[in-house]
């Protein structure tokens, strides 16, 4: 059909100005002339966390999507500059509390890197278990939110029932349902008992069994496949260009996983695979995450069986507990003793970490959180007990560009499906 353009004097509605809608200058006029619709999606919408997407439509095909983030921006980078290194641990897990262990791990590793501390082996395995539990939890959470987006309420109930077990496991390990704050510089807060390890292993069997049921109900459901297949496809080239991260990058055929590329924790001692898909559409993004659950389960089981054969205790580095100095003194006096870290830091946190100061310099770590790479940069001046500058780049913030680009060419009704398939979580992206 031939398009006819008519030069008419058009004026956008006054609400655009009076409600301070963040529309780029000239966008409304341009869309009016091109016979396009401009639709504001959000900030109140059915998803988890809130943001606004300004969508330009030709018919019902999206020609441009402009994000308006920041509705959950809480200024963590500024707050972190005014708090002790220790106080920043709970602060920095708040961006994505269901993924607490991974977010803590990145920050704590940056401190350990600066202080040049070696973490006891047992603590590394406990950290790995916790990180994988949180990864399963986040994948399940996003699967639940995706099904809400698709109007599949049963699909919301199942993963959340499974998540309940993960919350219980986190509670038995750390005492909190989701905000564990369990990982501290030099190790973990306290040792994990044998009964808790047994429970965690049982949880993995439960999740494995229930995931099979969930597969019938939601994952392999023809309606789900129809809503997600060939929607918002990103090519490998574009994925690299826009800097996608995590499972969304791997769904485009790029084999990049920080756990494999730059191993931390105990990942290099366990056997697991990087899950990769080639399609790059919404369904591939979802399936990659589902398959990662299976990988995480296998990692947890291996780590639990190794932990069982390890002697208990020694989960905090002796450097932090100040035992190295004592040992050195004894060594000078002629006595030699194996330095062992304590198994508990409860009640001693401020003694160990209160006056923690990092040597001057810049320390950067990348960690694979459930939704992708989280990057921490700590700049220290060497004198303060607080970071001089702390930069947090969360996965949500990194893949936002790719998410917006992928919406181009989709239909408006698919926007929810794409949003859900990315598992976009504004508290995480906005920090």
């Amino acid at each position, binding site marked *: 059909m031939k398009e006819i353009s008519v030069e008419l004097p058009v004026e956008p509605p006054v609400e655009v100005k009076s409600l301070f809608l963040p529309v*780029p200058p000239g966008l409304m006029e341009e869309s009016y002339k091109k016979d396009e619709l401009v639709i504001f999606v959000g*900030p109140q*919408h*059915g998803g*988890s*966390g*809130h943001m606004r997407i300004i969508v330009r439509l030709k018919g019902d095909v999206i020609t441009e999507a402009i994000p308006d*983030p*920041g*509705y*959950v*921006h*809480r*200024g963590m*980078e*500024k*707050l972190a500059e*005014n708090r*002790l290194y220790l106080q920043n641990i709970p*602060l920095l897990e*708040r*961006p*994505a*509390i269901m993924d607490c262990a991974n977010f803590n791990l990145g920050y704590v590793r940056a401190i350990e*890197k600066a202080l040049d501390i070696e973490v006891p082996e047992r603590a590394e395995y406990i950290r790995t278990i916790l990180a994988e539990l949180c990864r399963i939890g986040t994948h399940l959470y996003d699967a639940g939110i995706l099904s809400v987006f698709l109007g599949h309420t049963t699909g*919301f109930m*199942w993963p*959340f029932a499974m998540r*309940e077990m993960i*919350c219980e496991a986190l509670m038995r390990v750390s005492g909190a*349902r*989701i905000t564990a704050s369990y990982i501290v510089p030099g190790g973990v807060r306290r040792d994990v008992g044998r009964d808790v390890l047994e429970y965690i292993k049982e949880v993995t069997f439960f999740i494995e069994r229930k995931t099979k049921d969930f597969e019938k109900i939601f994952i392999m459901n023809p309606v789900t496949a129809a809503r997600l297949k060939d929607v918002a496809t990103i090519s490998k080239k574009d*994925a*690299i260009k826009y800097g996608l991260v995590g499972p969304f*990058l791997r769904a485009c055929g*790029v084999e*990049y996983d920080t756990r494999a*590329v*730059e191993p931390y924790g105990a990942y290099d001692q366990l056997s697991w695979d990087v899950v990769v898909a080639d399609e790059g559409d919404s369904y591939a993004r979802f399936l990659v995450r589902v398959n990662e659950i299976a990988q995480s389960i296998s990692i947890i089981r291996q780590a639990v069986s190794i932990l069982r054969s390890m002697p208990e205790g020694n989960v905090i580095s002796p450097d932090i507990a100040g035992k190295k100095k004592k040992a050195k003194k004894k060594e000078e006096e002629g006595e030699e003793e194996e330095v062992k870290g304590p198994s508990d830091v409860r009640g001693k946190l401020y003694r160990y970490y209160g*006056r923690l100061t990092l040597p*001057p*310099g810049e320390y*950067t770590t*990348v960690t694979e959180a459930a939704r992708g790479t989280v*990057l921490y*940069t700590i*700049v220290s*001046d*060497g*004198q*303060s*007990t*607080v970071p*001089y*500058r702390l930069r947090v780049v969360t996965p949500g*913030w990194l893949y*936002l*560009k790719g998410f917006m680009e992928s919406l181009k060419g989709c239909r408006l009704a698919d926007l929810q499906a794409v949003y859900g398939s990315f598992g976009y979580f504004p*508290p995480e992206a*906005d920090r």
Partner: protein
Amino acid sequence: MNDPNIKNIKFLHSGLLSPVKKWGAKWSLWAVHLVTSCCGVELAHTYASGYDAERWGTLNFGMMRQTNLIIVEGTISKKMAKALRMTWEQMPDPKFVIVMGACGLEGGLFWNSYHIVKPSEIVPVDYFVPGCPPTPEGLMRGILALQKKIESGEAKATAKYQPVRLEEVLEIKEVKERKPPKSPVKIAEKPEIKIEPRDVEWEFGKSFVDELNQKLAGAGEAFITDVNRVYIRTTKERFLEVAEKLSEDFDHVKSVNVIDVIHEDKFIVEYTVSSYSSKELMPVLVTISAEIPRSNPRFPSVIDIWPSADYQEREMYDFFGVWFENNPAMGEKFLIAPEVETPLRKDFKIPQPNYVLGGESE
């Protein structure tokens, strides 16, 4: 009478149909979907199969036009405040508000942030549920308390605490005045920001940095700061040249960072780039940095070379006011509310914690 809380209750308790209205409102508290922050995770658990809040007739729902309850889930940012008010205004009467989480009460973990407001200043709140985050049981208690309020017409706290007097409990004759503890937070007045080469065992890195230095041909100086971390120091004028040369190997930007060195009157702009296409360069993070004066913070944008830097450059404009030339979106606030100006500069002060009970924070 203008108080919406009183108006709602008065409406429910007046007229012949009052028992029906009360019964109807009590058992159909539909909460609008307003996941303002991380407490939403626990809210989702409350309404999912584990706790099943639907037993009490409450249900989470997408549209505000068909609901009568807002559960504010955590922090309300300055940007979100307007959305919260608009959502509340669009709901039909009678309507109720429950605020969840410590952030909604007094700010919680984020009490001295530049970007949050208290929900009680925006909407009339019926009940607060403290916790960070509150457990699903805690949230259910808030909803049950609201049901009781609808039934009886008056708000009652669900927990009462007796004031404790130290003298009686510890059998102390007199309570001595104690000195306030010293704040452990120590911020250096004239800090030194130095990023220097370090000797580390990294064979590949040494040859890589030598190659890089040859390639740069004086446009910048590259050195190793740690295993897998390379730092390039260059100038603003030659920055794009360096970026162009690096873009052959490194295909995306992981982080854009600005460091405000106020006592030396300069900003340090850093781009951390990495590679997805080359297997052996995958773990390597290269940070390119340049210094710019604080008085004229303009910097060339790299979005033509690395489109993935776009949103982070706009974020840095919000935070520091650094103007990235050629980025078309400069001049518009992106992440933070328009009324907040360059919050991450060091001269933007936020309230400091006070360690003395009853004293005022600085």
